């Protein structure tokens, strides 16, 4: 029971499309943070102190020379600024949009200490990278071919980063990706308003200008090929397969209708041309405390849900979503309830309510207090973490992820891994880029030997 497009509103019960006036969808899913124009960029760049051994560089997982690129913007050479950024982080454009800068470079900015207002590093990075991408410039040149061929599994941030670096160094690269399009989480796992206008695909197209990279979509490891196949036909393999599994709630009734994984909802939203046609509940409950939970909750609200609640089992400061993300959620009207764990999903085939137990932190760990409450819900999103799925046999794992050394070497010779599927790192786009880049450098050294 969908209700007609014209009569639906935020108050329409059930999971229905067209809750908002048509024009609202465009506004809701456009750039969440407007880009700096040239003047704004110069004003922002003027604030950089060009620190010695700058703390922002240290705080950046890809170690971008931030003071240098900001000075290059300030002196009217954004192309040079972009090259400074991209030489360390080939996905500098996406990172400028999705990095939790307030926890990384901007937190370390001395002007954060001085005035509580850091230099706007993320927005400046976007300014510079947008300039070169708009011009279609690719500031790197591929080295002479080495005759070596590397397989990269996964066309997400880690895979793309490794592929570009390997191709630049003269190796032939084939990227195998299970999805119909490259980009990985950049394409399927990030809120629409963070990278509108098909940015992820445009960035991939731009990245491929280096040459020497072939992408084979629809190729899943374990289904369409095995790691042994790849090892046999390539000189090296880089695994960047991400985390394809999703944690279960382990609550009664979680298989009920309109209870689904947040990652699927986010991917569907990203791929949908007409957002107004996407059905969303009137009362949406999102369970989890990370970026995925926030992205699902905020976008539910932007699709027209009346009430959206994030429920997290620990205290708010333990949420892995950044403070900035949490603020964004509450600013669009999402309610955040902490210290509550799901007990059961109630309903008659489809969800009507979710029952939670209050929790408290004790020396023995998180325990339920015995007090419970129920939230009205006609749609529930599970966002309690992803897990490694489909890892090839024979690879040593640690903590549920592929074990790697500092340069991404796995337990198998000739096989490297990076990004979310590999142990360590912060499960951020920017750390995946760094891991891909560093593994590529190590693979290069090894292939040269």
């Amino acid at each position, binding site marked *: 029971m969908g209700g007609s497009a014209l009569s639906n509103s935020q108050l329409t019960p059930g999971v229905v499309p067209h809750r908002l006036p048509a024009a609202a969808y465009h506004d809701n899913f456009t750039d969440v943070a407007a880009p700096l124009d040239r003047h704004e960029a110069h004003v922002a760049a*003027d604030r950089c*102190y*060009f*620190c*010695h051994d700058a703390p922002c560089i240290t705080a950046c997982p890809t170690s971008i020379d931030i003071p240098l690129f900001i000075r290059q913007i300030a002196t009217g050479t954004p192309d040079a600024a972009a090259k400074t950024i991209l030489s360390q982080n080939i996905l500098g454009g996406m990172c400028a949009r999705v990095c939790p800068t307030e926890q990384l470079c901007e937190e370390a900015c*001395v*002007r954060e*200490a001085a005035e509580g207002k850091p230099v706007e590093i993320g927005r400046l990075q976007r300014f510079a990278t947008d300039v070169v991408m708009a011009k279609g410039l690719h500031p790197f040149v591929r080295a002479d071919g080495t005759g070596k061929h590397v397989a990269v599994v996964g066309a997400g941030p880690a895979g793309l980063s490794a592929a570009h670096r390997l191709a630049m160094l003269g190796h032939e690269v084939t990227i195998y990706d299970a999805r119909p399009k490259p980009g990985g989480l950049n394409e399927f796992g990030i809120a629409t308003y963070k990278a509108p206008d098909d940015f992820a695909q445009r960035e991939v197209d731009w990245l491929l200008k280096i040459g020497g990279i072939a992408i084979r979509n629809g190729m899943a490891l374990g289904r369409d090929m095995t790691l042994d196949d790849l090892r046999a036909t390539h000189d090296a393999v880089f695994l960047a397969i991400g985390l394809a599994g999703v944690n279960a709630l382990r609550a009664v009734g979680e298989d009920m209708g309109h209870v689904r994984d947040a990652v699927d909802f986010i991917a569907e939203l990203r791929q949908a041309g007409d957002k107004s046609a996407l059905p969303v509940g009137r009362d949406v409950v999102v369970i989890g405390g990370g970026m995925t939970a926030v992205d699902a909750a905020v976008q539910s609200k932007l699709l027209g849900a009346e009430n959206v609640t994030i429920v997290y089992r620990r205290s708010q400061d333990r949420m892995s979503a950044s403070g900035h993300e949490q603020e964004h959620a509450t600013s669009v009207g999402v309610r955040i309830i902490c210290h509550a764990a799901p007990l059961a999903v109630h309903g008659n085939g489809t969800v009507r309510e979710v029952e939670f137990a209050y929790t408290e932190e004790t020396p023995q760990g998180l325990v339920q207090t015995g007090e419970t409450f129920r939230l009205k819900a006609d749609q529930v999103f599970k966002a309690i973490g992803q897990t490694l799925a489909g890892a090839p046999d024979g690879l040593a794992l640690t903590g549920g992820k592929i074990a790697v050394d500092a340069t991404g070497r796995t337990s198998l010779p000739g096989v490297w891994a990076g990004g979310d599927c590999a142990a360590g790192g912060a499960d951020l786009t920017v750390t995946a880029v760094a891991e891909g880049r560093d593994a590529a450098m190590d693979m290069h050294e090894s292939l040269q030997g």
Partner: protein
Amino acid sequence: MADLTTTFIGITSPNPFWLASAPPTDKEYNVRRAFEAGWGGVVWKTLGSEGPPVVNVNGPRYGAIWGADRRLLGLNNIELITDRPLEVNLREIKAVKRDWKDRALIISLMVPCDEDSWKDILARIEDTEADGVELNFGCPHGMAERGMGSAVGQVPEYIEMVTRWVKKHSRMPCIVKLTPNISDIRKPAEAAKRGGADAVSLINTINSITSVNLDDFSPEPMIDGKGTHGGYCGPAVKPIALNMVAEIARSPETYGLPISGIGGVTTWRDAAEFMTLGAGNVQVCTAAMTYGFKIVQEMISGLSDYMDRKGMTSTVELVGRAVPNVTDWQFLNLNYVTKARIDPDACIKCGRCFAACEDTSHQAIAMKPGRVFEVMDDECVACNLCVNVCPVENCITMVELPKGAVDPRTGAKVTDYANWTQHPNNPSVAAE
């Protein structure tokens, strides 16, 4: 609030802030608005001889340099003296003065270097009831090539001669405006004094090319692909102007000669600094051109507050207060020993002090874990560079070592005053 009423060479104005002879004072409309905004006086933009007025370029007249956030630091101009007919200017000056009797109104003059020309113009302006004249011997562009402006100001004999003519043919107080485009500012000031000038004003603008267009390979401002040097002014020239004012104020030959201070005065503080170095008042141009006439309100309130804090009731008490402390290098106390101190609580850990000291100075700052910066007293020569590059005011300060303390750098005890003229390394001392 302290009373800012200032009397300069017999001309009283409600405050010491005058607008300099320049584009802002070219016509009645501007000058009336300036007086309404609170300016104490105006030096009307330079008049020339009767006859067809000068012409200006019809392309850009100004070039500029900027600091952070495009703050204008220096301006250069190639505008000439007034390009409006003499009689129009005279009529307007008279009308303004009639309505603003409490404000100073000075007329700037520049005519060819012959006695008749000066006699003639002085007769023409008598009727305006203006308070005085300022002789424009300073303009470095356009007029100088016609034997006027800085072409006169660069030859002390001409300054003396023309000043003498002016004093001979006019009862009005006479200020001689000096060009900084010379090697020793004291010489033209002495010449003006010899010629009978009541005061000097300085500095006029400095010969300059502010920038070069890197696409057209022409100086800016560019006129049809070419550029020429213009007169530089604004905050960037203030240090040069302060020194020149001080040189005249402390020279025995010109000591006591009234000075109207000009050159980059932008805030009350700049004005106060000029006055402590001997200026009886100040003239402002670039700041007004950048921000409009309203800035005088900040200058008035700021100077009043400062004088109140210092217990001064008249600007007379401020004028020249720093002159006795301007000395020659050779008389500086070589036994005054200071060390830089970094306040860890104020430090924002940018490390600029470290980079400056390590790369370009004396390797006297240690960078410790956690980005803690500490001065090493045994290396610190007290150069002050760390203070200058630190973005946080008062985070780094220079602390004086008390007498008797040992300077860890030299191992020597801090002793009484002694200067270079007494130092054993001075060859002329050793020779004795």
